[in-house]
């Protein structure tokens, strides 16, 4: 495609294409992260959340972004090196988008300490970075790229499917996780409510898997795979992943610090509700 005579021209169009991709990623970053950018708990978390937890949160984002780039990046990628580069570009775009919006909202002001400002931005940059990466599926323009991403997602191995579930769970639960309502809802619920919610969540999750089976989305399992196998391999394992992610996010934000184990579990199941929808619908929303 890039013969020497066309080299200069294609270089130019590559740069232009990159600029377009970058603008699109910027839009995607804001599209996905605006609920969090407009959530006051997120602004406050930056100055009272544990530094180690914030560092870990940022660190864990990178492998997730790299994996996501493989399945669904905002650019077509061919090698691991490409995926790594895309991941850092997504983070940079997320960081820039968060900075801009937080300044516009007056959340960041000059009299704040550098620590507070960077904390506020880097916490938001995680969600915004995901948004930048997910742009490809949110604002699709190129049919070919979309087809490729679809093919990869559909042909994803079992491990790959679980990975997409992880990202889907994070994607949907992040936007509500930092709010006080998560813990408040769990305070309002009795253990009966909690058990019922867990049951409904599981059922809903199975419904998604079942529907996907009919549409032939899952290439991993045989079409005649039994109910039990499907339920165990996708629904139950998926729900376990969802609960782990919910717990991790609540722990990261410090929402469940100091609660008894049973109360922690309740809050985890509450956040598990949106997380499970995200995991189940991961191939629809990612």
């Amino acid at each position, binding site marked *: 495609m890039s013969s020497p005579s066309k080299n200069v021209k294609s270089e130019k169009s590559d740069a232009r294409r990159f600029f377009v991709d970058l603008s699109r990623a910027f839009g995607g970053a804001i599209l996905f992260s605006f609920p969090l950018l407009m959530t006051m708990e997120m602004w406050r978390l930056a100055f009272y959340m544990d530094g180690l937890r914030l560092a870990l949160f940022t660190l864990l984002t990178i492998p997730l972004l790299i994996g996501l780039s493989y399945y669904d990046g905002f650019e077509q990628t061919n090698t691991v090196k490409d995926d790594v*580069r895309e*991941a850092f570009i997504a983070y940079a775009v997320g960081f820039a988008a968060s900075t801009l919006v937080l300044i516009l909202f007056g959340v960041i002001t000059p009299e704040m300490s550098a620590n507070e400002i*960077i904390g506020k931005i880097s916490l938001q940059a995680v969600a915004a970075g995901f948004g930048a990466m997910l742009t490809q599926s949110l604002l699709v323009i190129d049919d070919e790229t979309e087809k490729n991403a679809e093919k990869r997602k559909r042909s994803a191995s079992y491990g790959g499917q679980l990975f997409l579930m992880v990202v889907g769970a994070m994607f949907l639960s992040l936007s509500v996780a930092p709010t006080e309502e998560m813990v408040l809802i769990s305070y309002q619920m009795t253990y009966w409510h909690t058990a019922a919610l867990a049951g409904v969540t599981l059922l809903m999750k199975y419904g998604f898997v079942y529907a996907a089976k009919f549409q032939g989305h899952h290439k991993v399992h045989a079409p005649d795979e039994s109910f039990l196998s499907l339920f165990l391999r996708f629904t139950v394992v998926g729900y376990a992943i969802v609960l782990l992610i919910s717990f991790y996010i609540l722990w990261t934000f410090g929402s469940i610090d100091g609660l008894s184990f049973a109360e922690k579990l309740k809050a985890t199941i509450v956040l598990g509700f949106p997380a499970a929808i995200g995991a189940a619908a991961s191939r629809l929303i990612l």
Partner: protein
Amino acid sequence: MPKEKSDKQEQGAGRQKNVPVGEWIVAVVGLILVIGSISLTLYRALTEESTPPVISITVDSILPAENGFLVRFSVQNTGNQTAADLNIEGVLKNGEEIAETSAMTLTYAPAHSMREGGLFFTKNPNELDLQIRSTGYSVP
């Protein structure tokens, strides 16, 4: 995560990609931001002891307001811990006698940061002895 070889090749044939320099620059910026924010938070987390908030309040200005006066002040927290619901009380004294008190609550006084606020008085703070202090906070 597993990668399908055939899928990769198929894609590679579709379009030979020249990576623009700008793309690398943005990626390196991203890398610096990741390393920078992680190391800053880690540094603060590991080096700072969790000492309680240290609150100092300075009066910035006293202005006439409707039905009285406004005392504008800034609250500086030099401690390592954030104070939530910081109660601030201003007292106007005439010698030993308390002439007037006003109070407000600051939602957050983050560690190593400054916040601003104001207290209203009916009597003129310029003619009396004005004292502003914080009376309590909660841990966020």
